[in-house]
């Protein structure tokens, strides 16, 4: 018979929390099934809480990594997010941050060895989330940019909008994104086809641009605070490539004032 206790102890909270994550854990002694009044039956209604927690967290991950779900198929994806929720539950009520470690978690899974690019698909989706929720900024006015002389442009050290994310992948991540997003023909690619993408937000829509190695290097130099002239030289960026990327930065309002 259960000993009568007057209060819900710290140990009761510990046990309740443990049982939310472990179906085989013992329930705290103070729980009663609402209809039968028996402690032994309380597991039946306790399951509502356990299911709510598991379902809610899985849904957070489903919402954040839909393309990974397409890549892996529904069952494999559900198994993976269930495992992740078990191993790495959220530490904060700020669920917008939950899932940051998911790509690294995928890297460590032997079952994904044959789909090594899956973690980069997750990294891409995480970058898209970051771009979506990034701080707003005041873009540099088009007239101010138009008034720059060629010399001004070379000496200019632009600051990127907070939404700009760059993802360099050893895999053809841009082609993978197109395939998964549009459900088109599966691309044929080899591991040598590394691709880098710039992810950004424009009018609240998330967009991706494929970057050549030179454009990628150019943007990295700029992000480090180098001037456009320096960055072009260091990145071996051709003038027409500079024109293309600079126009894109300006028209998508990605240069902060």
């Amino acid at each position, binding site marked *: 018979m259960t000993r009568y206790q007057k*209060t819900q102890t710290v140990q009761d909270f510990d046990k309740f929390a443990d049982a939310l994550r472990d179906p085989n854990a013992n329930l705290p002694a103070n729980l009663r099934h609402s*209809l039968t009044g028996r402690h032994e039956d309380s597991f039946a209604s306790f399951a509502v809480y356990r299911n709510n927690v598991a379902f809610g967290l899985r849904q957070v991950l489903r919402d954040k990594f839909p393309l990974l779900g397409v890549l892996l198929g529904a069952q494999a994806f559900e198994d993976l997010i269930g495992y992740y929720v078990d191993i790495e539950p959220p530490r904060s009520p700020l669920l917008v941050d939950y899932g940051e470690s998911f790509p690294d978690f995928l890297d460590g899974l032997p079952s994904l060895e044959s789909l090594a690019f899956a973690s980069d698909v997750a990294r891409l989706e995480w970058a898209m989330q970051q771009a979506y929720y990034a701080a707003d900024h005041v873009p540099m006015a088009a007239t101010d940019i138009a008034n720059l002389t060629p010399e001004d442009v070379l000496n200019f050290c632009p600051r990127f909008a907070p939404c700009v994310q760059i993802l360099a992948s050893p895999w053809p991540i841009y082609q993978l994104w197109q395939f998964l997003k549009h459900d088109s023909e599966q691309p044929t690619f080899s591991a040598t086809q590394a691709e880098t993408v710039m992810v950004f937000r424009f009018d609240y829509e998330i967009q991706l641009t494929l970057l050549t190695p030179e454009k990628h290097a150019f943007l990295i130099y700029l992000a480090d605070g180098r001037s456009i002239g320096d960055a072009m030289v260091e990145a071996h960026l051709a003038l027409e490539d500079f024109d293309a990327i600079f126009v894109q930065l300006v028209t998508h309002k990605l240069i902060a004032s």
Partner: protein
Amino acid sequence: MKRAGHGLQGVGVGFKPRHYEALMELPPAISWLEVHAENYMVAGGETLAQLRDLAQYYPISVHGVGLSLAGQAAPDPAHLARLKQLIDWLKPAQISEHLAWSSHGGVYFNDLLPISYDQPNFQRLCQHIDQVQQALGRAILIENPANYLSFSNSACEEVDFLSALASETGCGLLLDINNVYVSAQNQQWDAMSYLYKFDYSRVGEIHLAGFASDTDALGHPLLIDNHGAPIDQRVWQLFDFVCQNMGAFPTLIERDNNIPPWPEMLAEAQRAGQILAAAADQLVRA
């Protein structure tokens, strides 16, 4: 400290992004909106932009789900600071949280978890509510939970526990009538008795929502507060009872799952509005 629960009137709905366009059509068809605090603790982007737009036309009620007020640990200072930041710019008409815990041992459980109604839990909850009200500089509302379990060591009824919390801390109360119905069915007590005893002098907001009918692992019937269905007829009847007998309070239509097109939300809001208006009418004639 500013008393909670006097900033709203009439019927509001829980804001969902799919209803943004409809809600921006003026004049507004409903009186106010409620948002979940944690959804707006982001740096920028469309989410905040929509809230800024809506706040120009609608009083906002901020409903938190992450403070874990009934938990063993004090409210997380970082989370409280994020809530304060939201409150400071949004200046909501009302702020509410739950008689529940959701964090323990450094893990966030993303659900509203129950406590027994005993003295240590009462004292700790009072401290936590005090801390939040001090940090925010204003009173908050505390919502009654939906219950699926009972505790052997509860020393009093939930409705008395809530009254005592309000008296002790000066907080207001959020009466979720769907939760009352769900708990009453699950725990086999009388919803009307609960509603008779509720401390209406503290009520700043009423919630109405839908539930799911399920059975537990032993085959016993169990109602689940899933906010995923239209409001049940029996919950409408309880709401009508409260309005007719206890007064007209700002009332929210909640839907978090299976979110319907705007006309369906509006129809439920209008039905609640008619019940509120009839109650006000009766009050005038009396």
